[in-house]
């Protein structure tokens, strides 16, 4: 019984793992589908991968992918930049103003994306900006900024108040104090902010839906619009490739941690053996 109890947490983790990855496995399996409709099995083929970006549908897929990546890249970097700059400046204000500004910042976080998308649509109509590429990028930046602030502000708060003072006492200019002292300290926050905003922007459908015109299509919009006409297995192939890339990136980023943990386990076992 005790053995079962010991393995139960791992069993549970494994079960949830299967649950989470089931659709992804189905997706990847059907990416080898030879029938042009995604989820009716016709036969095994590697065509979808070989001809991923060729042909009419492949070309549209590529265009949507590039649009999504471009918008996500711009949105994540701009929103992180804006968040860093404003959090830095914000730290010079009184606590009251800080908490007011932060509360206002976090409002879009709790607003459902649907309402956010609609509110931006009204905003752009009000400002007289025509829906298109510009509104898409602006809307993405706008809904990413609260998440960027969410990632960076706590890190900034954790910072020792006296760090920048000490730097300046040691002869650094204000600018140098910021770039050489503060920024490296909040770098983890910056990295997680970029990752977070990029993820959100890539998978966003609701905000994009209300803020584009017919010339621009992001990948999620393309996938959703395929609902009525059957999802193309090339979508699956593209997703499988993206999954693989991210998986490898994840491994690469954590290679150090894995190596470290292996070493730690080794040392642990040695200690126990002794």
């Amino acid at each position, binding site marked *: 019984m005790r053995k079962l109890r010991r393995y139960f947490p791992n069993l549970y983790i494994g079960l949830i793992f299967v649950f989470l990855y089931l659709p992804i496995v189905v997706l990847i399996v059907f990416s080898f589908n030879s*029938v042009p*409709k995604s989820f*009716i099995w*016709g036969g095994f083929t590697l065509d979808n991968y070989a001809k991923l970006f060729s042909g*009419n549908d492949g070309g549209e897929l590529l265009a949507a992918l590039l649009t999504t990546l471009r918008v996500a890249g711009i949105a994540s970097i701009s929103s992180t930049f804006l968040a860093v700059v404003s959090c830095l400046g914000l730290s010079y204000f009184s606590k009251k103003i800080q908490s007011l500004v932060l509360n206002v910042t976090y409002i879009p976080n709790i607003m459902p994306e649907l309402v956010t998308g609609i509110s931006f649509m009204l905003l752009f109509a009000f400002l007289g900006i025509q829906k298109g590429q510009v509104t898409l990028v602006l809307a993405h930046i706008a809904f990413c900024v609260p998440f960027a602030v969410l990632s960076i502000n706590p890190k900034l708060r954790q910072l020792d108040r006296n760090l920048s003072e000490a730097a300046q006492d040691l002869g650094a200019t204000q600018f140098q104090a910021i770039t050489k002292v503060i920024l490296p300290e909040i770098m983890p926050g910056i990295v997680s902010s970029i990752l977070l905003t990029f993820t959100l922007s890539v998978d966003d459908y609701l905000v994009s839906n209300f803020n584009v*015109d*017919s*010339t621009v299509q992001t990948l999620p919009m393309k996938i959703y*619009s395929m*609902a*009525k*006409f*059957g999802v193309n297995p090339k979508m699956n192939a593209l997703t499988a490739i993206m999954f693989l890339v991210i998986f490898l990136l994840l491994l690469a980023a954590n290679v150090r941690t894995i190596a470290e943990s292996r070493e730690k386990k080794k040392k642990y076992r040695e200690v126990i053996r002794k």
Partner: protein
Amino acid sequence: MAGQSARKARCLRRILSLGTAMAVLASAGLASACSKSLEVSDESVGQTEIVLYNWGEYIADDTIAKFEAKYPQYKIVSRYFETNETMYPNLSNSYDVIIPSDYMVCRLIRENKLQKIDMTQLPNVAKNMDPLFKDVTYDQDKTVSDSVLSYSVPYMYCTVGLVYDANKVKIDPASTDPKTVWGVLFDGQYKNQVGMYDSMRESVGVALNYYGYSLNTTDSAQLAQAQQLLLDQKKNMSPTYGVDNLKDKLASGELVASAAWSGDHQVILSRIEELGNSDKIDLKFSLPKGSNWSVDLMCIPKNAKNVAGANAFINFMYEPEIAFANCEYVGYSTPNVPAKDMLADDVKNNRSYYPDPDTFKTLEIFYSSASIEEVYTALWNTVKASS
């Protein structure tokens, strides 16, 4: 002293970096300036462009090549749209030939966005167009309806009817009685096995047609009846709502009957063959009287640049061989009489694809107006919301 030289070094570095930035920008600019200037001063000699704005996959693969071979002075640029609604806002760009649907053509005529076509330039049309189309009511406004054929030329049309697996659904294949045909979709014995279009006009139209009412009625009693029918259907039959996914389900046998466009019948048949179900499923198409038909028409927008080219193209599309090739590829019905004669017997004699004149006269086009849209949308939303 050391401080000063350090500062000078820094200053120098800064100027250098600024200078390089400027140089980079300027060279990038010059590079693109040179390439762009070529673009501006490049004038193609002799050839003029015809910009065609069409549905996706709505023209045979080699039609455009054949046209350019016959008329080397023209070059066709193709643009594609998915729905009339996405096409409409793009009309501020200049196109030479556009192929919208009937209701959209009426709307464009009302908004004065089309130019009258000089029919003397289109001898093939006068020769080959089915005269049936001259008697059709395209719009509830008579003046607009009568003027449709002066602004546009029919390209392809299709009808809405019932596709069904004759092995499982026993109805008289020759029947055109709406109650018999549509009754299949409302008959409890086919629970969980029928499909309806996830589209307001088509599905409400089926219900209205079942009772024999006009597909454009605004009579609230009639609409209430139709709504009740759809509500009962949703509750008792659990139909699958969809557009394209219905075809796959019919091909795999999941559904035994569905409302469908005539063009889709051929598509589903070929899909059945692909899946190897030809011996299991005998898919038939039945067109009841008073059902919907729709036509896509070629027209020339007011801001077209190449009217001569547009005329040449439309005339070319009405050559029998070309119309035949297009019809084979797309699968819809052609208004071109000699092209229709070239079709296989079982297609051209199929009275659901090519209804006889009496049935044809009963068919209706969906009129589009704000009031109709509002009422029908509300009706359809209520049906979708209930369970």
